């Protein structure tokens, strides 16, 4: 398996507080990696560092052999490094169809055109409907996002990410806040992700992690403390301490 994406020694400090310490990680094409860790471990900070929302204090991000550390968030997206958000960031007045159309047009460099129509291009429309169909969003394609269920909004986040034709996809808690009745649909969507895509998923729902991931990385206090197969995680002492140690301490304090 050839390596598609790699971070080396990624470090970020706010003032004196290190929230990410020397994180190194590599992903081949087709990877299904779950990044887990207790609250405050620095998982979302890691995604922000990788996708360029914040600048690292040290370390490199390498995509397809190119160093992208100095590129901003927009250029990284254009190179195929795409993320979803932990809390949906959608435009409540627009429909799912409009979201995905805008994304497709933008990918093709046509989103800032004034002398062209937003709808009416049949190739774009077909692609949009293909994406919405794959994620089961056709029914609500023309309703305002503010009016559709939260689970469907989460699926739309994934649809937008896929419309960018990513090489590496970072899913920040795709099932967060979704009622358990709707999680199967998210799971289904995750199973259907393009096989060649490298996916890194942050998730708290361990069932989902076990079913989805081929490899698990555990982050605690900004550091990688475990890297291995899903079934090994529960048996690892460091992981147990990272998750349960807090509770043990909390109990002794109380």
């Amino acid at each position, binding site marked *: 398996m050839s390596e598609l994406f790699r971070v080396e020694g990624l470090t970020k400090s706010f003032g004196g507080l290190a929230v990410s310490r020397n994180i190194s990680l590599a992903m081949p094409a087709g990877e299904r990696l779950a990044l887990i860790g207790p609250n405050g471990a620095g998982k979302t900070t890691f995604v922000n560092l990788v996708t360029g929302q914040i600048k690292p204090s040290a370390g490199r991000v390498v995509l397809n052999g190119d160093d992208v550390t100095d590129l901003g968030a927009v250029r990284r997206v254009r190179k195929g490094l795409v993320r979803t958000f932990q809390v949906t960031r959608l*435009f409540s*007045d627009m429909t799912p169809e409009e979201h995905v159309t*805008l994304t497709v047009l933008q990918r093709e460099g046509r989103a*800032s*055109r*004034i*002398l062209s129509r937003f709808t009416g291009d049949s190739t774009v429309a077909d692609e949009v409907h293909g994406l919405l169909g794959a994620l089961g969003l056709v029914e609500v394609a*023309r309703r305002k996002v503010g009016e559709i269920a939260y689970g469907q909004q989460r699926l739309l986040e994934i649809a937008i990410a896929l419309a960018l034709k990513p090489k590496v996809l970072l899913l920040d808690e795709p099932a967060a806040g979704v009622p358990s009745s709707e999680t199967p649909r998210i799971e289904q969507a995750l199973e259907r992700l393009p096989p060649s895509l490298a996916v890194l998923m942050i998730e708290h729902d361990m069932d989902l992690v076990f079913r989805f991931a081929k490899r698990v990385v555990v982050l605690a206090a900004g550091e990688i403390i475990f890297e291995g197969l899903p079934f090994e995680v529960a048996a690892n002492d460091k992981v147990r301490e990272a998750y349960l140690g807090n509770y043990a301490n909390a109990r002794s304090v109380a």
Partner: protein
Amino acid sequence: MQVIAPSEKLVAPSHTGAQIGRDVAGVLLIIAAGLAGYWLFPDNLALLTRVIAVALMVLSLDLIVGYCGIATLGHAALFGAGAYAAGIACVNGVTEPLTLIVIGAVGGAAAGLVMGTIMLRAHGLPQLVLSIAIVQLFHEAANKASAYTGGSDGLSGLMPSPLFGVFEFDLWGQTAYLFGLILLVFVFIVLKFVVSSPFGMLCRGIKEDQVRIRAMGAFVFPVLLKMFVISGAVAGMGGALAAISTQVVGLDSVSFELSANALVMLVLGGLGTLYGALVGTVIFMGFEHVVSSINPFHWMTMVGALLIAVVLAAPKGLSGLTDRLFASGRAKGGR
């Protein structure tokens, strides 16, 4: 949480068709209202032409505030740039009206480019302050460059030649008014296309969430700057129209007061619809004409009270209010 009523179709029909139908009706309504003004108030055509010029500015302000979500209190800088560009060209021998409108648009667009480049460096309050500082700077510059602008006396003696070589700008302002009305309708149609283009959708997205737009792989700054330039061109046309029709360009066309009033008109009518800009301008300037002829300070009190009322009772402006009334009417009808 949404329960889909069984009678409702799963896929709503494309609303593009309905939208176009509504816009055609809207444009026809604007033309009808404009012609009605022509027949009903033949003695006030100068005022009505002024309303059209200001309406162009408020439309252009809607592009910035309503579609991009950038608050500005300095929009008259763009209007004034167009007015002075056309005015200076006119006293220097370029008298063809359409050319003057184009010169105004170019002047406004250039000012929009400058203003956008400066304002987009900051966010929030500093951005608002920058907008004010820019319009004040333009004001001072126009005041001091009196050799070109006439300073505080204003730039007078504009003699535009007949439109298409045929229609003289007469004393009653008939030509100017009809010219303005045609210009307004033309600009309005163009802007409707602009805001429903991919670019317009991108701007709406930027207004709601810039982080999301960046995560979609789109740069924010060039898009907003482009909108500033378009907005400047439209405001500049308004300024040029005002210059041609009144044959004077005063310092008040680049003032903080005019900028603030334009914002009030826009908010009164409703943001982000383009129709709201027109409605707000007509209502505001109509009232202003009536009340300020009695006592200008009563007018200030009234505008103030109106603003407070709009913020408290109809945050989406009058067009939002009618939408809400329609919506509740439909809901009642449906039950």
